[in-house]
């Protein structure tokens, strides 16, 4: 938690130190981790030279787990203890699962988090955040082994069309895996970065990203290192898995499989994937599935999957319209995601955009590579880079109003970070609490939108009805995550907010999960935390002192200067002691006293950005 060190944009405070950072593509079917080494971004392979890690986790009876190819091999042997496609469950509710339940080997139940829990054969329940966290941990370990050090931070990609709950669940999984998230990056934006930097390409780019379980379409303008997302759209529950499911459905029908036969359905999915992949290069395949033997042709599966592909093109049309871009203004179309290998997808996309889609960078790796480039910049390894990613919120944010209607507060495709304030009043005398229901989506009725969270404001000072003015501010940060602040403006009382995510873990639940994983080493933890707090205190002192020296006299009144100075001295003294809490408090006081100073320093540096360039312009 360093403070106030407003270094020049993009410049590291310690330029010579190369820090380890990685980009992680946490996919529905496969995951990858990449990093920048000697100026080149590349994905990291395992000991057998394999880059992709199947996003499959096998839980063993002894509490251990394995992730990847080995876990996948267990799928046919021990399906009840193997979890795949967990990304589909992130930030979702059990009711969303109807479509995929049939072909899932695992039993899904309602869990405490609101998300579906997966029940293993030994009746142990795993929530999606835990499972994703196990995948992330495995990927991070691979990077740490390859690079020979601890990762200082990671950029994790998410589908652009992921809603807030799905993003939060992803970030929670990273936290649980002990990873510092530098940024949640939208997958198509990551792909655009990889392409843009690799080829120096400029202009309007459409990124068509069809993964295992999600579909994104993003329209970006690339210009002088700025990647500006104009609009994004898609379907966070549509992907190559749906091709498999459609084919599997056909197989199950041909073989007259009983609808309760989980095992057979699971096998049909595996078979379907093989058929789909085989028909990428050949025109017909022989199929043996249970008692059924037959032949399937490419034309046949194209008929089966065409409606799914057409659905993606409808999203493309809508997103172009949102971006205010006509089809013939699109300069380049980039294909991302394993499912874009399907020939029919390429054909239809080319026909729609009237340009041949680009596949120069491996569609499986391009997202991880882009994320690695961004991670390298954010960790501070690249000093003179102008690269800037400007992204948008994919789905409108709204609140529930009278009659179950959703009132839009922040419309979709608004650039982030963004905030909107709304004013409410009380409708009963002496009312001290108020409930707010935040939803995400485009539809008019709350029931047709995704429920994100219910907030309860408490501690409103009692007044007559209609007298209180409660200002609620919805802040969406650069990760697309929402924070809600509430204040009664006539009295200045900050209302307390209790957040109950509709599909997610509360802060307490996460803390508990983290603690239980650390409980064995409690003594070590304390010592480590104290060490970290002391380092932090030293950093704060150094940073704030340097800032004061630089322009404290210029930007601060004498009293303000003195107040910061004295809180620094206090922190210096406290940090000699052994109380974690006291040091924490002292840091907080410095932070509070110096906040306005930091703000002025930043404003001065932002204003300079404008002046500095005006000369070039003339």
């Amino acid at each position: 938690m360093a403070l106030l060190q407003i270094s020049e944009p993009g410049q590291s405070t310690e330029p010579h130190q190369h820090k380890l950072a990685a980009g992680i593509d946490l996919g529905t079917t496969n995951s990858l981790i990449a990093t920048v080494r000697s100026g080149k971004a590349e994905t990291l392979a395992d000991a057998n030279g394999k880059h992709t890690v199947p996003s499959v986790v096998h839980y063993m009876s002894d509490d251990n787990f394995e992730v990847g190819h080995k876990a996948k091999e267990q799928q046919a042997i021990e399906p009840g203890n193997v979890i795949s496609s967990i990304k589909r469950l992130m930030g979702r509710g059990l009711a969303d699962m109807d479509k995929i339940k049939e072909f899932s080997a695992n039993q899904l139940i309602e869990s405490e988090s609101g998300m579906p829990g997966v029940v293993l054969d030994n009746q142990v329940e795993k929530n999606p955040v835990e499972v994703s966290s196990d995948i992330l941990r495995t990927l991070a370990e691979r990077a740490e082994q390859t690079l020979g050090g601890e990762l200082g931070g990671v950029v994790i990609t998410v589908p652009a069309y992921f809603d807030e709950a799905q993003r939060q669940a992803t970030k929670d999984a990273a936290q649980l895996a002990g990873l510092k998230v530098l940024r949640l990056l939208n997958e198509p934006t990551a792909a655009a970065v990889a392409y843009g930097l690799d080829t120096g390409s400029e202009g309007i780019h459409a990124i068509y990203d069809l993964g295992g379980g999600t579909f994104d379409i993003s329209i970006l303008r690339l210009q002088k290192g700025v990647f500006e997302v104009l609009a994004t759209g898609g379907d966070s529950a549509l992907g190559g898995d749906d091709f498999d499911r459609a084919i599997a459905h056909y197989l199950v029908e041909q073989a007259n499989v009983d609808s309760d036969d989980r095992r057979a359905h699971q096998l049909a999915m595996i078979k379907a994937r093989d058929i789909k992949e085989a028909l990428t290069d050949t025109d017909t395949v022989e199929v043996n599935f249970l008692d059924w033997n037959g032949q399937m042709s490419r034309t046949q599966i194209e008929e089966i999957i065409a409606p799914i592909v057409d659905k993606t093109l409808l999203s493309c049309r809508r997103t172009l319209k949102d971006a205010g871009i006509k089809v013939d203004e699109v300069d380049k179309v980039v294909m991302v995601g394993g499912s874009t290998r399907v020939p029919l997808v390429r054909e239809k996309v080319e026909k729609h955009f009237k340009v041949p889609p680009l596949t120069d960078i491996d569609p499986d790796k391009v997202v991880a590579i882009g994320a690695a480039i961004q991670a390298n910049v954010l960790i501070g390894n690249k000093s003179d880079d102008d690269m800037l990613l400007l992204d948008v919120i994919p789905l409108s944010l709204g609140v529930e109003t009278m009659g179950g209607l959703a009132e839009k507060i922040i419309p979709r495709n608004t650039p982030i970070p963004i905030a909107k304030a709304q004013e409410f009043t009380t409708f009963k005398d002496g009312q001290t609490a108020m409930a707010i229901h935040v939803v995400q989506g485009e539809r008019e009725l709350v029931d047709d939108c995704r429920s994100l969270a219910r907030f309860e404001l408490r501690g409103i000072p009692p007044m007559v009805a209609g007298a209180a003015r409660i200002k609620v501010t919805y802040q969406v940060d650069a990760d697309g995550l929402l924070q809600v602040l509430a204040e009664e403006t006539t009295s200045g009382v900050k209302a307390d907010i209790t957040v109950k995510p509709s599909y997610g873990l509360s802060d307490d639940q996460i803390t508990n999960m983290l603690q239980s994983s650390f409980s064995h080493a409690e003594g070590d933890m304390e010592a480590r935390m104290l060490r970290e707090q002391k380092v932090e205190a030293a950093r704060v002192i150094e940073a704030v002192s340097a800032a004061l020296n630089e322009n404290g006299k210029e930007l601060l009144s004498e009293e303000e200067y003195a107040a910061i100075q004295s809180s620094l001295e206090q922190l210096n003294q406290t940090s000699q002691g052994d109380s974690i809490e006291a040091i924490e408090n002292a840091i907080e006081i410095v932070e509070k006293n110096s906040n306005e100073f930091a703000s002025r320093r930043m404003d001065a540096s932002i204003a300079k950005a404008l002046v500095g360039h005006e000369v070039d312009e003339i």
Partner: protein
Amino acid sequence: MAEAQRNYFELFGLEPNFFVDQKELSSKLKRLLQSAHPDRHAQGGSQQQMLAMQKTTRLNDAFAVLKHPVKRAQYLLQVVKGIDTTKDHTVNDPEFLMQQLELREELDTLAQQKDAAGLMTLADKIEAMAEEQEASLGQRFEQEDWDLEALKVSIYKLQFLHKTLNDIELAEDKILD
């Protein structure tokens, strides 16, 4: 000294004026964001990141206002004259109101018939009207002494047209669903 008080025009180094060069505005936003965006402060502490988020939010807000003719006009009146035109709406111009009513009826009919092409034609027509209204609003702002009543009416009219354009978008969205 506190920069939070700087108005949106000042943030972009502009004089308070209705005419804003959109290309320049957009390129200035990018320059400002090169310095303010949270990604540029990823190595700073939580306080610095929080500030960067707030500054960027304000720049994005300012940009959205200066980009949009109705919001820009309203903001300009607010900043220069302290007049809030965002709340009460009165246009005492029966001819204009009748015309708007007819346009809305046309929109409803087209929406019901799911006539996407018809909606596009209607949007083009209204867009032309909005452009005309915007030009006349611009002229009123050019005058030395602002005729405040005329400005208000002009802003309301433009707002009307933009609202209808917005509703056409929504109707088009529904057809795409």
